[in-house]
């Protein structure tokens, strides 16, 4: 149960980018997990070369990822959104991006499992009889911090509110004096920047290879959809639900079914209540 909660915090961190980009901007960026893995490798490289802490690296790299995200969005915008044919071909576009990132990584760094070192890996604290691993606790806390930060960004800043509004009514947003394309660029950049940190968290928790992204495509979108498409609080709740479900399945019914259960939940949710659990 506790493990599930911790895992949930981490899942939330991983899914925030999708929540923002897919949930709020309606851009089906299925390459997001690949950006996360890119973040993992950035953390790995810095950790190996300079002994820099993974999560610190993740934080330091957010501006780089922000710019990367902004560039990708501009390309996407010029190629698809402006022509008004975003959905299907955009999806394929990001599928291609996913592959390019994945393969570039394996060309550069090979396919060995990569991990990082940090003082807190392998240690745990005892809380009321339940040992809590720092390796999971730290990402969970960072994940919560990210969730909070994003929540504050969205609800307290002008840019954030504009991001929430942009997919609801572009024209009305322009009437507020905001440029939707610029807002989307910012939001996309932030989403990808979140991937930098999420990637760092990922490599802290488990070893990573370039193809690890495939394990997360489903989880990320499941969480986003369950969470109600773009609701930050919903994302957190859905992430925790998924984390707890996986943990409980592992503990009580045999771990081999845990993934199927997560996706079973997603399928049912999609079929019965497409607006998600906390859909507005």
């Amino acid at each position: 149960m506790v493990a599930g909660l911790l895992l949930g915090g981490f899942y939330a961190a991983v899914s925030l980018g999708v929540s923002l980009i897919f949930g709020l901007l309606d851009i089906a960026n299925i390459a997001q997990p690949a950006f996360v893995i890119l973040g993992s490798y950035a953390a790995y490289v810095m950790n190996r070369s300079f002994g820099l802490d993974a999560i610190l690296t993740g934080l330091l790299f957010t501006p780089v990822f922000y710019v990367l995200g902004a560039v990708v969005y501009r390309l996407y915008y010029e190629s698809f959104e402006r022509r008004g044919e975003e959905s299907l071909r955009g999806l394929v576009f990001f599928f291609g991006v996913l592959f390019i990132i994945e393969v570039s990584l394996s060309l550069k760094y090979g396919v060995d499992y990569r991990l990082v070192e940090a003082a807190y890996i392998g240690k745990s604290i005892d809380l009321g009889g339940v040992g809590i691993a720092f390796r999971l606790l730290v990402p969970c806390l960072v994940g919560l911090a990210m969730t909070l930060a994003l929540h504050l960004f969205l609800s307290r800043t002008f840019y954030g509110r504009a991001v929430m509004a942009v997919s609801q009514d572009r024209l009305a947003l322009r009437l507020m004096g905001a440029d939707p394309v610029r807002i989307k660029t910012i939001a996309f950049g932030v989403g990808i920047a979140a991937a930098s940190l999420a990637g760092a968290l990922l490599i802290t928790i488990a070893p990573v290879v370039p193809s690890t992204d495939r394990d997360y495509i489903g989880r990320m979108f499941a969480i986003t959809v369950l969470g109600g498409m773009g609701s930050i609080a919903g994302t957190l709740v859905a992430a925790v639900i998924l984390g707890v479900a996986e943990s409980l399945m592992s503990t009580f019914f045999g771990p081999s079914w845990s993934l199927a259960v997560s996706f079973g939940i997603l399928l049912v949710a999609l079929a019965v209540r497409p607006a998600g659990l906390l859909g507005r």
Partner: protein
Amino acid sequence: MHDVDAGYGAVRVLHHVSIEVREGETVALLGTNGNGKSTLIKCIMGIVRPEAGEIFLETDGTRVDLTKRPTEEIVGLGIAMVPEGRRLFPKLTVQENLLLGAYRPQARGDIARNLAFCFEAFPVLRARRKQLAGSMSGGEQQMLAVARALMSSPRILLVDEPSVGLAPILVNRVIGKIKELKERHHLTVLMAEQNFNQATKIADRGYIIVHGKIEFEGHSTQELREHELVKKYYLGV
């Protein structure tokens, strides 16, 4: 001092339309739907690009050409629009909608004051500020739309069809509010409206637009009310 002169000729919807609104005036743009009122307002906002003609904003003796500017910049110049159909952000709360209205950098400093004013003018919005905009009734939504436009501290307010989809009693209240706000804020108002009687209640003067042409210019409310064109074009007599 502010002097909008919009003369333009778009091939399809508007044909050589010229209107002007002087500072402090309330001007009504009358006509039934489909005659080009909304298009005209959209042209001013830069949402629809005129194919010919000019739209100017004159401020303190400087003329600013609006035709080549994107909507965002036009908003930045102090022109706010209450769009037809309200176009709120239905999945945001009332307060979030209002705060978005203050996106314009010049308005950000005045948020507290403007918000207080909006809540005072529309007490219902204060009561419902945590509610999602989409879940409110039509009248409340229209109030919110007007309030949201005011949050940008505009000098000129363009109102497009404020009465659409509202029960008669609500139309009355919305129109009344616009008048009240205009006076308190020293706004210049250009209102497109099909509800003739309601619009002429608050307008200083007005234009009747039919099939994309200005068919009649009434220099006073009186002149408008007495003109028979009104009935002819409204009911096709």
